[in-house]
């Protein structure tokens, strides 16, 4: 069937004076397959759209080219208008004659405006209709990690009516909150109880993920619990795998006999101070040695310093460089610590730490005094470094997610922050993304819960079917697209008894076209940005009109 293209030129309220619109109009009429050219001043307004719609409704045209402002402004409105007029919304091709033509150059740009219009017309000739469809999504959510963030996600989702499965590899829920002094205190026990009582939350402890396939809306996950392997399906996955504190051997050498202790050890002491032979007179904390921006270690050191004051009554020194107090409530804890007599000593150069007469000798240059000072401590609590939980890398590779340069979940990419990852339907919350305190983790949780709810609650998602599509006849099954898709949206699917070919999930696809560019068999078409459409634009460049 003959293609009938209608070209709608908009002079933006007659403001684009360096374009001779009648001339553009006159010459656009001569372009191949163009059957209508209209000159408008207000295509973005209701009246303008109405004018356009009546032309479409007349049935005179079946492709629309609009030469107007940037598509970034009104593209969606124009597409809706097409649909309203009963035309497939993909039958639209735009020429940016305002931002990228009239406004961008000095002097008359009629020729350029005409060429941009010609490019859009040429592209329009190759457009194919795109069908919107509903795809069902599984409304169940998998939460990996039963610490604070994981528990909160599960509770919040359950409260919104989404069933969750909470997988924890440890024996019980609670994670690092157990024995961790927090301010404000987290009601860990009541959270645990609420989860137990909630019928929409299934808790699997001593369980780990072993395999993961599929995409958003339909993840197939295998979970190993004891000797059993469970197969489950989920619509979304939330990672809340937390962190692991580590004392870097290069920073502190914890040797027996030297009373340099870990935070964990201090917690043990604080739990049962009566077991100590001698009540320590002086306890020191050292911070900012391995990482100047440590948030969790600072918070726990401050809380522990207060606890030491309260339960042991020792003299407490905190040796630090900048003291990161940007977490909610930490400034307050810091003030309280000072009020209670905790001494903060600031350094620029790393303190020198050694043992002398069974005590820990800390020598440093106090930047406030501007002098060398020496402090003897009965115990010195070493600073911990926040590291990704063990197995983060393995877990990420099961779900084909990238990790950041330090090994935490979520690749370093501005578009992913705060809680997304490159795979749609997978979110990362809390300390599995790095050094995040409880308040920040809570923000993460809220954000992930909202996104998950939006995604799954309707039970279906609207997609443009086969916008990016593998031609099963042309696919050579070389797996290249599967390997390169940054969003893990492509998998092998059996098309008949013998053949498997690559297939793109409409829901998981983010429409980047990387696969289409790399496919060696040219088997992937990307409607709107297909080879013939891009090349059509290229072909129109420089054609004398």
């Amino acid at each position, binding site marked *: 069937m003959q293609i009938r293209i209608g070209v709608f030129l908009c002079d933006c309220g007659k403001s684009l004076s360096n374009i001779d619109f009648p001339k553009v109009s006159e010459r656009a009429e001569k372009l191949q397959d163009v059957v209508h050219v209209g000159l408008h001043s207000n295509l973005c307004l209701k009246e303008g759209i109405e004018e356009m719609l009546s032309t479409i409704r007349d049935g005179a045209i079946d492709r629309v080219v609009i030469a107007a402002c940037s598509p970034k402004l009104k593209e969606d409105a124009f597409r809706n208008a097409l649909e309203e007029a009963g035309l497939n919304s993909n039958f639209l091709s735009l020429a940016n004659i*305002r*931002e990228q033509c009239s406004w*961008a150059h000095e002097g008359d740009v009629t020729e350029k405006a005409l060429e941009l219009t010609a490019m859009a017309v040429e592209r329009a000739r190759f457009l194919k209709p795109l069908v919107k469809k509903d795809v069902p999504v599984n409304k169940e959510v998998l939460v990996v990690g039963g610490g604070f963030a994981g528990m909160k996600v599960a509770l919040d989702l359950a409260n919104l009516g989404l069933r969750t499965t909470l997988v924890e590899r440890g024996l019980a829920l609670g994670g690092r909150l157990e024995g961790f002094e927090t301010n404000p205190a987290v009601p860990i026990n009541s959270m645990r109880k609420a989860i137990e009582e909630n019928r929409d939350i299934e808790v699997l402890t001593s369980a780990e993920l072993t395999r993961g396939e599929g995409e958003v809306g339909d993840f197939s996950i295998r979970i190993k619990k004891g000797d059993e392997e469970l197969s489950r399906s989920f619509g979304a996955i939330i990672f809340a795998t937390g962190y692991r504190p580590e004392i870097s051997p290069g920073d502190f050498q914890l040797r027996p006999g030297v009373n340099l202790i870990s935070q964990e050890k201090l917690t043990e002491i604080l739990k049962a101070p009566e077991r100590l032979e001698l009540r320590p007179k002086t306890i020191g904390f050292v911070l900012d040695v391995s990482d100047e921006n440590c948030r969790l270690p600072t918070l726990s050191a401050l809380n522990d310093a207060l606890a030491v004051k309260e339960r042991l009554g020792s003299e407490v020194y905190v040796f630090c460089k900048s003291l990161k107090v940007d977490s909610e409530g930490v400034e307050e804890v810091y003030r309280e610590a000072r009020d209670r007599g905790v001494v903060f000593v600031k350094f620029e150069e790393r303190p020198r730490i050694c043992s002398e007469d069974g005590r820990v000798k800390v020598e440093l240059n106090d930047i406030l005094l501007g002098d060398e000072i020496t402090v003897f401590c009965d115990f010195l609590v070493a600073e911990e470094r926040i590291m990704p939980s063990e197995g983060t890398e393995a877990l990420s590779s099961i779900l084909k997610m990238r990790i950041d340069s330090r090994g935490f979940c979520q690749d370093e990419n501005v578009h992913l922050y705060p809680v997304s990852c490159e795979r749609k339907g997978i979110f990362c919350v809390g300390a599995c993304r790095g050094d995040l305190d409880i308040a920040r983790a809570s923000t993460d949780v809220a954000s992930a819960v909202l996104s998950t709810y939006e995604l799954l609650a309707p039970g279906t998602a609207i997609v443009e079917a086969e916008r990016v599509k593998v031609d099963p006849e042309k696919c050579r099954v070389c797996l290249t697209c599967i390997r390169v898709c940054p969003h893990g949206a492509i998998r092998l699917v059996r098309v008949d008894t013998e053949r498997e070919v690559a297939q793109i999930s409409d829901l998981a696809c983010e429409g*980047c076209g*990387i696969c289409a560019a790399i496919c060696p068999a040219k088997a992937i078409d*990307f409607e709107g940005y297909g080879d013939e459409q*891009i090349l059509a*634009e*290229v072909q129109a460049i*420089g054609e004398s009109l």
Partner: protein
Amino acid sequence: MIRGNNKIVAFCCENSAYLAADKAGRMRLHYPDNVRIIRVPCVGRVDLIHILKAFEKGAAGVLLIGCHEGACQHLTGNTRAKERAAYARNLLKEVGIDEARLRMANIAPDMAQQFVREIEDMTEKTKER
């Protein structure tokens, strides 16, 4: 014989360079009007044949402009484009086209001036040929 059309074809990522070009327009930062912007969803979409065909059409220069490294919405699109541009330069060299006529650039959505500079620079470079 392919005639030269003296145009610069700029394949622009719609998440960054395309927006920078829009902004340049809004700011009325005037630049040479021989540039033809082709909007792509990610600069990683641009294939070798697109580049070659642009030169077959007689383009004076071809630009691939994407997001900054580490800021690609599709993670690897811009780094792939960079590799592809390097590969394409070899293909161009084989046919005797000055490699400088193809360039990959990284631009953030608000870097209108930088966008203009890239266009001016390429225009300047390709004038000399």
